[in-house]
């Protein structure tokens, strides 16, 4: 009788076993959680969008001076507090939080021209101000007019397009399965009446997107992304931040688990199915048992800075920036435009000095 083959488990590395991979390693000993399947250019550019946790990814990339792309930056010389108040520099365009895959698809349809820019609702507030239903809190006090809101949305879509066409990786953080839609199916960023607009039970409906619908929205989004930039990669993450509230009727803990599980499952399957899509496990790093919830603030919702640092440490460790750089020409063109502005301002300053001195001379 021949000797039986060793089981597949016999040759697995320590990371494949819970005891060695997690329990003994501890939260700061976790390793090899993620390795990018793509060899990205050394100067790879990343566009970051999604739910609020995606902001941390933007910030970390900026802090490391990695290629975080900003398609709709604040005007130069904007002070940081003003930029933040108007949500510049938070994501790679002023989309505000994109919580659901349905929202992402709508935004990309708008960029691609499949949906008219003025089709999604603009909400009129009782105080006479106006809010964009796609991003009701993008301006602290709303917009002065309907037209101003549409123009700002147009700018955002231009910025989103710039971010997509300039990026190597589109990082999208999935946040929620729960959302709100109009009677005609337009997804909202928030329930009308919470951040703007007013709630009408006949016109607004609650949706708890199921896995198939989310997958469809992400598949559609990938097609739209690749239509704008055939070389772009989609890196999915799931926000570890629990729901603030649920309208599902379930307990918020149960609803959170449902939401995150569905998102995690869809993201994982999409990464398995599509070579241009991958999943990065920020959700697992923050919520896994190894942390014993230590990466949450006392409200058990917000993620502490050390948790973010840990997540981003794994992210940077797993990146493979091994392909030759490809954005040198763009960077040089940017620098050249900056130089041209500086030189033009200096030349005008000289002209101004001369004009005034001439007047002294005449006096």
């Amino acid at each position, binding site marked *: 009788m021949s000797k039986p083959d060793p089981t597949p488990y016999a040759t697995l590395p320590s990371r494949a076993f819970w005891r060695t991979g997690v329990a003994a390693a501890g939260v700061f000993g976790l390793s090899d959680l993620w390795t990018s399947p793509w060899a990205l250019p050394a100067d790879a550019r990343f566009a970051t969008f999604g739910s609020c946790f995606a902001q941390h990814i933007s910030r970390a990339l900026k802090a490391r001076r990695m290629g975080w792309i900003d398609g*709709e*930056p604040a*005007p*130069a*010389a*904007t*002070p940081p507090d*003003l930029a933040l*108040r*108007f949500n510049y520099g938070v994501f790679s365009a002023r989309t505000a939080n994109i919580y659901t895959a349905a929202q992402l698809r709508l935004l990309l349809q708008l960029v691609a021209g499949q949906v008219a820019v003025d089709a999604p609702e603009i909400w009129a507030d009782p105080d006479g101000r106006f809010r964009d239903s796609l991003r009701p809190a993008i*301006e*602290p*006090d709303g*917009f*002065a007019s309907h*037209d*101003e809101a549409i*123009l*700002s949305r*147009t*700018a955002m879509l*231009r*910025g989103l397009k710039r971010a997509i066409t300039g990026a190597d990786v589109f990082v999208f953080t999935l946040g929620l399965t729960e959302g709100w839609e109009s009677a005609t199916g337009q997804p909202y960023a928030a329930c009308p009446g919470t951040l703007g607009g007013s709630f009408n039970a006949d016109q607004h409906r609650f949706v708890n997107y199921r896995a198939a619908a989310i997958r469809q929205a992400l598949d559609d989004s990938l097609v739209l992304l690749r239509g704008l930039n055939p070389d772009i990669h989609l890196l999915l993450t799931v926000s570890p931040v629990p729901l603030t509230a649920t309208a599902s009727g379930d307990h918020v803990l149960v609803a959170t688990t449902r939401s995150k599980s569905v998102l995690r499952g869809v993201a994982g399957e999409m990464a398995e199915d599509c070579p241009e899509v991958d999943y990065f496990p920020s959700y697992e790093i923050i919520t896994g048992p190894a942390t014993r919830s230590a990466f949450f603030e006392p409200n058990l919702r917000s993620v502490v800075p050390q948790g973010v640092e840990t997540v981003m440490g794994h992210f940077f460790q797993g990146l493979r920036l091994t392909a030759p750089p490809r954005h040198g020409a763009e960077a040089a063109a940017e620098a050249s*435009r*900056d130089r041209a*502005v500086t030189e*033009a*301002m200096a030349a*005008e*300053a000289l*002209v*101004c*000095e*001369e*004009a*005034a001195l*001439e*007047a*002294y001379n*005449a*006096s």
Partner: protein
Amino acid sequence: MRPDLLIVGDSHCGALQEAAVASGLNSKMLFLSGNLWHENRMRPHPTQGLSVPHRPALNRRIAAFAAEAQSSVFPKDIPVLASIGYHLGRLVPPFARHGHSPDPTHAATEDAALFTSDAFLTGYIFHHRSSLFRLLRLASQDARLLVIAPPMIQTDPVALHVAARITRILRDNGIAVFDPREEPDWADAPLPEHLRAPDGVHGNPAYGAEVLSRLFDRNLIRMAAAAE
């Protein structure tokens, strides 16, 4: 002899000063570069009218001007024309560097434009000009101050919009402004060629004379006050 008129501000003072002197007025000019005004650090000063923290050489220059004029930069009894608060050459190029435009028509028609809301633009302007607005507001309470907005020689829609917004802010703060772009014959078009300086940025002395003439015609400068 005390001056009849004070002209204070950036390089746009030049055309006004040349015109004032040519017309026989005893006009004194305090020119500080647009860069200095753009620093947004000017403060009211109880005797000399304005000062700049930690800039001793500049403060000596302001003090020398006040001594020569025998008054504050913003006296109660001498009319003051001020080209202060705009300094568009320092403000607009950075604002527009990435394609931003606060002008609705421009933003709607220019494919690459990134529209900025009026609320944002206002915040941006205040960040860069708040000390100047405060200076002018306080000076307006006592002095016979009239701000002269710069002539628009170019037709850059961003510069036009920003300038108009600053004019509105100044007036909202109780500061009197003469804005050449509101003149019926100078609106909606670049300043006529014969009123432009060769540098392509400023009005020439003929422009300065035209402005002074309009101010006198409308009694916006009360010269008699100097003798009171």
